[in-house]
């Protein structure tokens, strides 16, 4: 076979574009066709996975299944591992204080060693949240198919990759065959029109999209994000938007690769280098959806109308602009009323009240949604304007060790500490309650993470208000939800 067994973490080489497409083919279809091994009897596609990322939570059972089936890892060089969900952010001294966490760490170390898979652990200096390190190391590239046992794998679509969150049995499938059995999604183009006002961030754009289309509006679709607002976004902002595709029900979301993408990738550790980079750019350009591409659906979102947004309920679609009042269940369509009432009962908020002024107990800045350097810079801008309010616990958790080093080189950690925020080690932290960072009892947390589900942040009765990192920092200082535009 003519396939190179070059590791996904080596500097890749890209051939000239070798596939011709009609001039109206969208990116998803092109990438799909390039990676299709065959059509399966079920009608699904056997899709080759170019980059497989694994972490400690959803992989151990997959390795166990592989062992049971007596199968090797087929392309061990196309899988890369890190540890993020269970890793503590105060001390990562081994053995970890939590026996269960230590067991999971040992399991991924053992599995990676046994199967020849590269593991970026804390000692590597490159550990971090899987969706932060893939992009920053240049592993994530346009035109790739990417899979990871984590729903926020949609993040990687920011580069024009087709990236899916998968379950553990599918992790087994990829380890054993480097393929997925998967149905091709339909594509919905979402044009975000106009221009964002000052104090309005990528997080607000994604919250606005989910509010408009609903938390299940994207089921069966890949979202192609485009339009003037997306065009001028940095890669990090696009990562935030693509990250929350799954919160809108879309398993995958992407942005067409452009000069912003190529500039970001140039000279990253695992990007193609030199002439290979130029060849890669030519291929990447050929993948972008043309202006008259065909889609299954198209919608527009008015970027001019987006305000700093805050979730108030128990799913990310239940969010409003900071100037708005909480919705009245009686005004909502009948099928939504039960949901709204359940949310009010859990959150102890009142219909018709403003969200501004809601007191908070905890502020969390971090996660695969908003734990990158640009997020920390924006939060630090706000942190410079005051001190964390008495009684508020405020955490800043860099998304990776690389982000941490960058922030420290800029002195951001000192800015945060001086303002009364705790500066932690890289990990998923308080996004998901699998490590010591958790809410207690009915605490309310202003959070830059992605999910406000019941119990999500570790207390079965804890409450989450999703917002941008700048809004979280502003809330930490005020002690309650405030409009960041009044602080900037």
């Amino acid at each position, binding site marked *: 076979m*003519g396939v190179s067994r070059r590791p996904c973490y080596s500097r890749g*080489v890209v051939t000239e574009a070798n596939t011709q497409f009609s001039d109206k083919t969208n990116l998803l279809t092109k990438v799909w066709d390039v990676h299709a091994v065959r059509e399966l009897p079920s009608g699904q596609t056997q899709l080759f996975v170019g980059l497989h990322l694994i972490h400690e939570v959803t992989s151990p059972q997959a390795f166990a299944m592989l062992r049971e089936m007596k199968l090797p890892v087929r392309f061990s060089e196309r899988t890369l591992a890190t540890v993020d969900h269970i890793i503590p952010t105060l001390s990562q001294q081994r053995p970890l204080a939590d026996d269960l966490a230590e067991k999971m760490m040992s399991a991924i170390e053992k599995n990676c060693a046994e199967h020849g898979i590269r593991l970026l652990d804390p000692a590597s200096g490159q550990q971090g949240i899987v969706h932060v390190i893939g992009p920053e190391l240049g592993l994530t590239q346009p035109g790739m198919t990417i899979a990871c046992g984590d729903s926020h794998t949609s993040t990687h679509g920011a580069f024009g990759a087709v990236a899916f969150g998968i379950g553990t049995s599918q992790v087994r499938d990829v380890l054993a065959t480097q393929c997925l059995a998967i149905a091709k999604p339909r594509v919905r183009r979402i044009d975000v029109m106009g221009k964002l006002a000052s104090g309005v961030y990528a997080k607000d754009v994604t919250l606005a999209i989910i509010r408009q289309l609903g938390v299940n509006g994207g089921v069966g679709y890949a979202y192609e994000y485009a339009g003037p607002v997306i065009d001028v976004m940095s890669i990090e902002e696009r990562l935030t938007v693509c990250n929350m595709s799954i919160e809108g029900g879309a398993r995958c979301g992407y942005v067409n690769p452009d000069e912003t993408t190529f500039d970001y990738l140039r000279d990253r550790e695992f990007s193609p280098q030199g002439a290979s980079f130029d060849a890669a750019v030519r*291929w990447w350009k050929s993948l972008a959806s043309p202006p008259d591409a065909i889609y299954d659906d198209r919608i527009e979102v008015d970027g001019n109308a987006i305000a700093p947004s805050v979730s108030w309920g128990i799913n990310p679609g239940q969010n409003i602009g900071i100037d708005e009042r909480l919705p009245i269940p009686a005004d909502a369509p009948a099928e939504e009323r039960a949901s709204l009432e359940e949310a009010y009962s859990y959150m102890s908020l009142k219909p018709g009240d403003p969200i501004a002024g809601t007191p908070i107990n905890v502020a969390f800045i971090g996660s695969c949604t908003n734990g990158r350097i640009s997020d920390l810079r924006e939060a630090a801008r706000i942190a410079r304007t005051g001190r964390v309010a008495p009684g508020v616990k405020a955490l800043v958790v860099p998304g990776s060790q690389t982000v941490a080093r960058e922030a420290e080189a800029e002195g951001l950690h000192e800015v945060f500490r001086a303002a009364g925020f705790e500066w932690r080690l890289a990990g998923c932290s308080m996004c998901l309650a699998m490590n010591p960072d958790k809410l207690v009892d009915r605490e309310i947390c202003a959070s830059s993470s992605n999910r406000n589900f019941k119990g999500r942040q570790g207390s079965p009765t804890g409450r989450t208000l999703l917002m941008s990192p700048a809004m979280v920092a502003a809330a930490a200082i005020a002690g309650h939800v405030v409009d960041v535009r009044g602080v900037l």
Partner: protein
Amino acid sequence: MTAIDRIEGRACVLRGSDIDTDRIIPARFLRAVTFDGLGEHAFEDDRIQAKGDHPLDDERFAGASILIVGANFGCGSSREHAPQALMRSGFRAFIGKSFAEIFAGNCTALGLPHVTLDADDHAALMDSVTLDPKQQVVIDLEARTVTSRVGAVAANIPDGVRRQLLEGNWNATHVLLEAGDAIEAAAARIPYLADFPS
């Protein structure tokens, strides 16, 4: 693998839409290297808060093997622990208004049929089983129907998933391996993988 063409049993009615996988199995139970023991923690926090008034604790539904749910069931995290927990607590199939995509894929991979009903049929089934939880509910994948005291109604399931279950091909690893060398051949055609001199 076993072909799955029919699930028959009593059903449990769990109302509400957008029930996420964090509720189905809270994250703290994912701190483990196996799926063992997840069954007893299904919906744990919801059940504690309902103080016994949760469908999974309702004696009338005891022994149910089919879970009837609302819209967008299983949204959120990709954790296969969610269908694993429900399977290990005794459920063999799901009937809903709609399912989140990753959850549905995970169910298929475990051989758990998940069918959707049109709104009226769905409401009628929920009401009927609530009134008479002792009745038998039958999911017939061959006929694409759900039969209960309401009668036989059309069950929706993607063709591919139905075929996988009916043919016993729901463990995708076996099916994917059948491609043999075609996998390496496909990889050789992918520009960023092809063995091309730099």
